[in-house]
Structure formats: C-alpha cells, structure tokens
C-alpha cells in the first residue's frame, strides 16, 4: 500500500464538557473513496472542520501528503490541495454561476492584486471554470445568477467549486443533503465518475449512497471511530449494528 495521502492521528477536540472528537485516527491512501458515517451529533461536522482548518484540534495531528498541517490556516490548506464542499450550501448567491467557479480558480492562480484587467475576460480563469461546470453538468447554467438555481444545482455547483482548485483530496460534507431521489442518483453517478480521478473523504447520511460508493468506511459514534473497514465488514460489524444501525431501527419503530 502506498503512503497515505491523509493521515489523522489521535485527534481530539472538546467544547467545554463535550468531547466532540475523541482520539480519532484513520488514514486515506491515494485514490480511495473513504466514507465517514455516524448518527447525528457523532462529531462528523467537527471532524471535517478540523480537517479543513476552520477549527483547530486540541491535540493530535493531521498529516497531508507527508506534511504536518494540524495548525495550518484554512486558506492555506486549500492551496496544498485540500478542497472542501459545504454541507449547508455556501455560495456567492448574488454572483453568476460562472463567477462562483472562476473565483475558486482564481484562488489558485497566484495573488489577486491585479487592479485593472477585466477578470471576467481572462481565459485563464474562465476556461477552467467552464470545464469544472461541464464536469458536473452545469455548463448551460454558467451565466445564470447563482441565487436562481435549484437546491440540487447548488449542490453540484459546490462540487464544481471544489474541483476548480484541482485538489488532491476532496472533502465532501454531505453532498446529498436535501436532495430528492432523482437528484441523489445523479449525484451518486457524479461521485462515481469523480472517484476515478480524485481521493475523496465523503461525509454522508445517505447510507445507500455510502455503501454504493465507498472503498472503505469509518464509523464515528460519540466522537470516536468504532470501526473502519470495507462496506461488507462494516455491514457485518456487531458494534456498528448496535451503535448505529440499531439506532435507526429504534427511530423507525
């Protein structure tokens, strides 16, 4: 097995008396689609926030491509190839769809202290942005105002923006959140295609999607990883059934 692209060791984060991340360790080798699942309140969002740098861990280490990034600020993580899509759609709503992606391209195209040239006429920004939009199937929406798109299209735009920076690892925070069955299926197809080219950490509630896509799955419960393994191993894991799937059964009852 090659050296892991992302390696998390003994990560911990507390908020007052609540342990949100409790001694979490896992590794993702290049090319893997690794899914992170867990019931509500398990600490998935907190973990993603630490990986993307919007909050810092209390202890433990995050290594990316061999470098320690535990204390690296958020904007710098994006430059070394870690791209994050947001669970709650977080876009530039009053700008055009193409502007949104072009900004993501621009973030990786050197500094932006360019005051005179029309950025909307720069092929170096617009072309990669159009490619990313085409990749998620939004090419025909490029000139639309972002606020006018549907929720499903917003999710796809999120993905296009993450792709625009040519990342080495995609952190996808619930890309299916709020999608209808049809849109969900479209997103699964999209992720299956992306999986060929990218290493992906997928945080997702949609179990069907997770088991269909993931190479390996880690299960987070109360801030701890209770199991990591292939979809089959996870499905057969007794501890997971009790802590997680059992939870779902109770909910259905």
């Amino acid at each position, binding site marked *: 097995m090659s050296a892991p692209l992302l390696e998390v060791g003994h990560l911990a984060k507390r908020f007052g008396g609540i342990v949100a991340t409790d001694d979490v360790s896992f590794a993702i080798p290049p090319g893997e689609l690794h899914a992170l699942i867990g019931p509500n309140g398990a600490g998935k969002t907190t973990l993603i926030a630490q990986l*993307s740098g*919007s909050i810092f861990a209390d202890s433990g280490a995050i290594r990316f491509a061999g470098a320690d990034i535990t204390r690296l600020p*958020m*904007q*710098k993580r*994006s*430059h070394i190839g870690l*791209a*994050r899509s*947001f669970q709650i759609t*977080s*876009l*530039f*709503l*009053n*700008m055009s769809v193409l*502007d949104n992606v*072009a*900004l*993501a391209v*621009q*973030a*990786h195209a050197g500094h*932006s*202290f*360019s*005051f*005179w*040239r*029309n*950025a*909307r006429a*720069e092929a170096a*920004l617009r072309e990669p942005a159009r490619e990313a939009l085409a990749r998620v199937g939004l090419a025909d929406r490029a*000139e*639309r105002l972002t606020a006018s798109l549907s929720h499903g299209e917003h999710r796809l735009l999120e993905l296009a*923006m993450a792709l625009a*920076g040519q990342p080495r690892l995609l952190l996808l925070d619930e890309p299916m959140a709020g999608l209808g069955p049809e849109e969900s299926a479209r997103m699964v197809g999209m992720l299956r295609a992306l999986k060929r080219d990218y290493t992906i950490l997928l945080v997702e509630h949609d179990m069907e999607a997770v088991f269909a896509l993931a190479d390996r799955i880690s299960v987070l419960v109360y801030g701890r990883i209770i199991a990591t393994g292939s979809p089959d191993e996870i499905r057969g894991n007794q501890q997971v059934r009790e802590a997680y799937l059992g939870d779902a059964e109770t909910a259905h009852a």
Partner: protein
Amino acid sequence: MPPKTSLLTLRNIVVALLLIALALLPVYAQLAGDRFALTLFTRIVIMALAAVSLNLILGFGGMMSFGHAVYLGIGGYAVGMLAKEGVYSGFVQWPVAILASALFALVIGALSLRTRGVYFIMITLAFAQMAYYIFAGIARYGGDDGLTIYKRSQFIEALNLSDKVQFYYVCLVILFAAIYLVYRLINSRFGMVLQGVRSNEVRMRAIGFATYRYKLTAFVIAGVLCGLSGALLANQADFVSPSVMYWTRSGDLIIMVVLGGMGTVIGPVMGAIALLVLEEVLSGFTEYWQIILGPLLLLVVLFARGGIDGLLATLGERFTLRRPS
C-alpha cells in the same frame, strides 16, 4: 446564454444625461447668471467623490465603515496646515493629503478589519471621533474653531483654483477619474475578491483567499480617494474644521451611498446629488427639513433596496416589458 442586454436602457440614458449635465453645469451657471448653482454643485461633486470612495468598501466590500468622514478631515487638514505654514504648492499639499489618508486608513483598517459586524462599525466610528477631538485640541491650527485657508492650492500658472469654473472642472475630472478607477477595480481580480468577501467571506477563505489583506487594500484605496475629496473640500470652503469629520458627516456619506444605490458604480453620485439638492430645497421651506428627509430615506430602504440606481433599472425593465415586441 441570456440575451445580450441593450446599452440603451432607461438607467443608462439617465446616467449619460446626468454626466453630461454635470459637465455642462458651468455653462448653464454662466448663461443663467446662477452663481449659486455652481457653488452648490462643486460641493456636490466633491461629496460625490467621498461617497464613491465609501461605496468601494461599503457597497462592494460589505465593510460598514462609520468613520469614513475622517479622511475628509485628514485631507482637509493636510491642505490647511501646510497653507498655514506657508506651503501653498498643490504638488506638495495633495500628495501629503493622499499619503496621510493612506497611512491613517492603513492603521485604522489594520485594527478594525480584525473585527466584524457591530464591532467594526464601532471601531471605525471611535477612530474618527478620536481624530475629531485631536484636531479640535490643536490650538495652533484653530482647534474647535477651525482653520481659515487664505490661499487655495497652487499648481501651474495656467490653473487657478480660485476661479470657480476651473475649480469645478478640476473636481469633476477627479470625480470622473475616480468613478473609472472604481469601475476598473471592481471588475478586476481584486474586485472579484472584494465582492466575494461581501457575498460570503467564510467561503472565500475556504477556497483559499487570505481575505484580510484584500479588505485592507480596499480600505486604504477608499481612504485615499476620500482624503483627496477632503483636500478639495478644504479648497472649496477656504476653511477646514474638525466638524468635517464629525460622525454625523460619516452618516451623511452612508446615506448618500444607500440612497443612490450600494454596490453600483454611479449610485453614490446620484445619492450625493439627491441628498444635497434635497437638503438645499427642503431647507428653503423649513429648518426642520430632516423631518421630510427621514421618511424619504425610509421609503428607499423599504421599497427600493437598490437605491435610486436600482429603481431606475427596475423602472427600465418594466418599461421594456410593456413595449410590444
């Protein structure tokens, strides 16, 4: 692709007429013998420059500075203090006004941009009030009473700022240049970053922008433009006093920007004209003219979010829609 929008919209026609009217105003003043119109509009053009500068950070950058008038004072005092010391050359005065404003903006911005929301508003306000009291306390330069400027800035032989028409055109050229500068700026990479920050700063940082330095740069550019406006204002009034940077003056600038239309290039110019003409006309009827201004502002905020500029665009669309095609 959406249909190409026509250049000949109601809004663009109004803007073009407005700019032409500003350019021809001295001709009217001359023909009609209306010297007062020229004085009023010189002031309007100068304040429009200040509003345009505030709009860069407020309208495009989403930075709610409540102390922007401080640069009117900095620019004004740069001219006034140098004049008092016998330095009348505009080639010295204006660069000093610009540099001092830049320095001030750099310090204020560096500290205040670390905060957001209400705290940002409060800190910018506090800095401006601090400057107000400092200048009010310098006896040598008139303190509270202000400083009379006996000679306007001197440039070359051919340019006489004491000539009302020449001075008006100097102000107008600077305003037009500033509008063009802002127009280029907001469409550049820098401007895209600025507008991204206004729209969603967290996301900007997540996709890899160190937003602070871009905001600070915009803050300094806005300060410089407003400082220039201050230098012009001092020349126009032949006088500068701490009151130009009092917080209500910062409020006036915000009103101009909101009234005219936040985040449009020409909106603040419309806002400056609307506010100052309204003030002039209404105060002719009653000294309580603000009783009328208040509800008017309320209507704009409630029903015309895009200000006058936005209103024109909306009206233009309605007009086009009704036309049989």
